[in-house]
Structure formats: C-alpha cells, structure tokens
C-alpha cells in the first residue's frame, strides 16, 4: 500500500499566452496520501489540480494515475474516449458545487453510474442511498439542489463524486464559497474520507484544516512549488521566506 506512486506529475508546465501559470512542477502522491496545496491566489494551485483530470490540460509535462498516463497525446476521438475513461477514476469537488439543478439529489448521484457503469436503477439507487448516508443527507434524496444549503450541496457533490468509486479525489477550494458556519460539516466529511485512506489532493485556504488532516503540504507561489513537507514543518517551521510571509497573513486570525 505504501510508497507506491499513485498520482505522478512530471515537469508540468502551462502558460496562457506568455503568462506562465505553472513552471516545471513535479509531484508524486502515494496511495492513501492526503496532500494539501496552499498558496496565494494566482499561484497556479487550482490550475495544477485541474490539470490532473485534464480540465485545464498542461502545455507540457506528464500526469499519471498509477500506470496510466492521463494527458496522453492522441487523435481527437481517441483522446476524448481516453479522457472520459480516466476521469471516471478521478473524483472532483468544486468551489461552486456544480450540482445539476434539473435533477434531484438522487438523480445527481445516479446519473453517471447509470450512464457510464451500466448500473441498473435499483443498484444505482442503493449506491445513492449508501453515499448519502455517508455524508449524512439520507433524508434529502428526493430534494432538488435549490432546496439545499451550501454545505448540504457540497456534501451531495462529494457523494456524487464518490458514487463513481474514484481512486483519487480532488478538492478545489471546496469550502471557500460556504458561509463560515457551514464549513465544518463539509470538513467533517473530508476528514472521514481521510480516515478511510482515500487518496486526496486538496487545494485550500484553510490552514487549520490542512494542518489537521493532511500528510503533506505544498506551498505554491507564482507557478512553482516553493516548499513542501509535512504540515508540522510547513506550518511551524517553514524554511522559505515566501512561505513564512504567506503563513503570517493566514495564520494570524
């Protein structure tokens, strides 16, 4: 289980025009590891996360999940088929939830498993019930997203991603759009996933959460990984001046 490269990013670079968002980033995440990516806005952390599932493809470099290269160069049709396949193994949770408003909670969760994994209606319903129980929202199964609070929406979004039985979960500022009192319920769900050894890569502004849950913390600034290490080192004893400056602003709350 341990020491096995699970998600590998090699020499990742990306530019929009002449602006380099990511500059030669290397990252290896082991199975079951929980990695937090922190850094100021515009540092490239969301772009890096979105490169992992090809939402924002890299300009150069490689992304691997186990022994499959995610960003393979292929002719258009093959590339689409390949990406649709590998994305099934990569769950993603967004800042703005991106629940489907025209479907109930049940519909949101069962859509992809039914369409892509060929589950029967009964199997998919059972799956939806399991995943909702896990995020503590069993009673909301037949509600539309418009009837849910932000925290509940995000928990449904997590359940929807988990229903695909992903190998890794990506969180892109999952609690940034939430009212402060709703953050904790989402953090609880993420902690629970951590305890189940789900491999997670988390872009976050919440240092306390990163410190308490993650195995490793990456500090990014201006498209590079400035410093990385266990949270105890990064948060208490960072080496780099930029890291210290950033943390001074974010920890003095």
């Amino acid at each position, binding site marked *: 289980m341990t020491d096995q490269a699970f998600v590998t990013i090699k020499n990742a670079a990306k530019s929009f025009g002449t602006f380099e968002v990511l500059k030669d980033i290397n990252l290896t995440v082991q199975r079951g590891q929980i990695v937090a990516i922190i850094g100021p806005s515009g540092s490239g952390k969301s772009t890096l996360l979105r490169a992992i599932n090809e939402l924002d493809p890299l300009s150069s470099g490689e992304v691997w999940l186990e022994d499959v290269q995610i960003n393979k160069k292929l002719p258009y049709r093959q590339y689409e088929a390949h990406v649709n396949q590998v994305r099934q193994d990569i769950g993603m949770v967004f800042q703005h939830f991106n629940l489907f408003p025209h479907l109930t909670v049940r519909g949101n969760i069962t859509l992809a498993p039914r369409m892509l994994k060929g589950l029967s209606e009964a199997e998919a319903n059972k799956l939806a019930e399991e995943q909702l129980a896990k995020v503590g929202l069993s009673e909301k199964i037949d509600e539309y997203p418009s009837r849910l609070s932000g925290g509940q929406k995000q928990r449904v979004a997590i359940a929807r991603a988990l229903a*695909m039985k992903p190998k890794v979960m990506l969180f892109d500022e999952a609690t940034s759009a939430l009212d402060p009192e709703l953050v904790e319920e989402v953090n609880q769900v993420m902690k629970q996933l951590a305890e189940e050894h789900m491999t997670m890569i988390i872009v976050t502004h919440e240092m306390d959460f990163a410190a308490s849950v993650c195995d490793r913390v990456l500090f990014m600034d201006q498209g590079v990984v400035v410093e990385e290490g266990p949270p105890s080192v990064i948060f208490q004893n960072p080496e780099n001046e930029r890291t210290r400056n950033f943390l001074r602003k974010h920890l003095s709350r």
Partner: protein
Amino acid sequence: MGLDFSVVPSYFGVLLMGAGWTIAITICAGILSFFGGIVFAVIALYAHWALRLPVRGFAFLFMGTPLLLQLFLIYFGLIQIGIDLPAFVAGVIGLGLHFAVYNSELIQASILAVDKGQYEGARTLGLSRGQTLRRIVIPQAVRAVIPPMGNNMIALLKDSALVSVIGVMELTLAAQQAISRTYRPFEFYLAAAFCYYIVNLALEAGLRHLERRIAASR
C-alpha cells in the same frame, strides 16, 4: 339588420369541431416546433458547417418570409414536385417549422447561458461531450426557455388561423362556413374570437402550471 346571437347556438357543434381542429393543429405544430427548435439549435451551435449552413439558410428563409406564403408553398407548391400532403399535415409542417426557427433562437441563447461549471461537473464524472449536452445542458436550457417559448406557443395558436386558407376546417374556417350560411359575420367572428380566447386562457394556465412545476428544478 341588428345583431342576433340566437343563431350561434345552432352552429355550436360546427364551432366546437373547429376549435377541436385548432387545438389539434396547435398541439401537433407545437410539439414539432419544440423538438425542431432543439434540433435546429444544436445544429446551429455544434454541427459541421456542411449541415449548419444549409440549416441556417433555411432558418433565414422561414423567418424572412410570410407564414401564409410558406403554407401555400407547402400545400400547393409541393404538389408540383409530387408531394401531395393532406391539408392538416401541410399546416402542421408549415406552422411547426416556422415556429421551430423562432424557438431555436431562444434555445440557442439559453444553451449558451448554461453555466460553465455544469459542463465541468459533468465532464469530470466522465460524461462525453454529447452525453453532457443531452443529459445536462439541453434539459437545463429547455427549462430556462419555457416562459419565452410559451409566448411563441400562444402566437402559434393564434397563427393557426392561417391554415384556414389551405382548407383545414379549423375554428376560423368553421366560423366562415357558418357565416356563409347565415350571413352573420359579426356574431360568428366574435364567437370564434371568444373560442380562441378560451383556448388561449387554457394554454396560458397550462404554461403557468408547467413553470411552477419546474421552478424547483432550475
């Protein structure tokens, strides 16, 4: 000669039949214009130019010429090239395609207005572009477009009177028949107008009900 509405009840059956045909043609053309509108919108936004350009040309043709003329063309014109459509079918096709073009404009705008996060949410789960379009984007676009499309349906109901000119025995033509027997145009046109109004009220009530039903799922 004063007004005498006492002749109207004896033609009640004729008017009712006419109203029935008006409703039938509105429903059929409405359904055609709804699905046609979706198909045209998807072609306009996503299809290869070899399909997109002819469809756009066709759309311009339907928007830039009178519906009356289009009905003449479909019913009387097509016979010359061997396509002999029953009047009802010709009426449904003419009205349906005409309003499909208008609906398509609405649906295109509505598709483009669907939040980018919806595509990302769907694609991240592994849905293909086509699956995302069919299951996520179009259903949302259609829900958003139901209120303005309802206005088109009301216009369609009223414009269905035009198919009287190709001999479909709908409400307007039924009224004309009654008039030709009784010489009471005012009474029967008024009665027909009243019938249109009632059907329109029912249509509007139906649309409001639909809007309320989908309110939660938007």
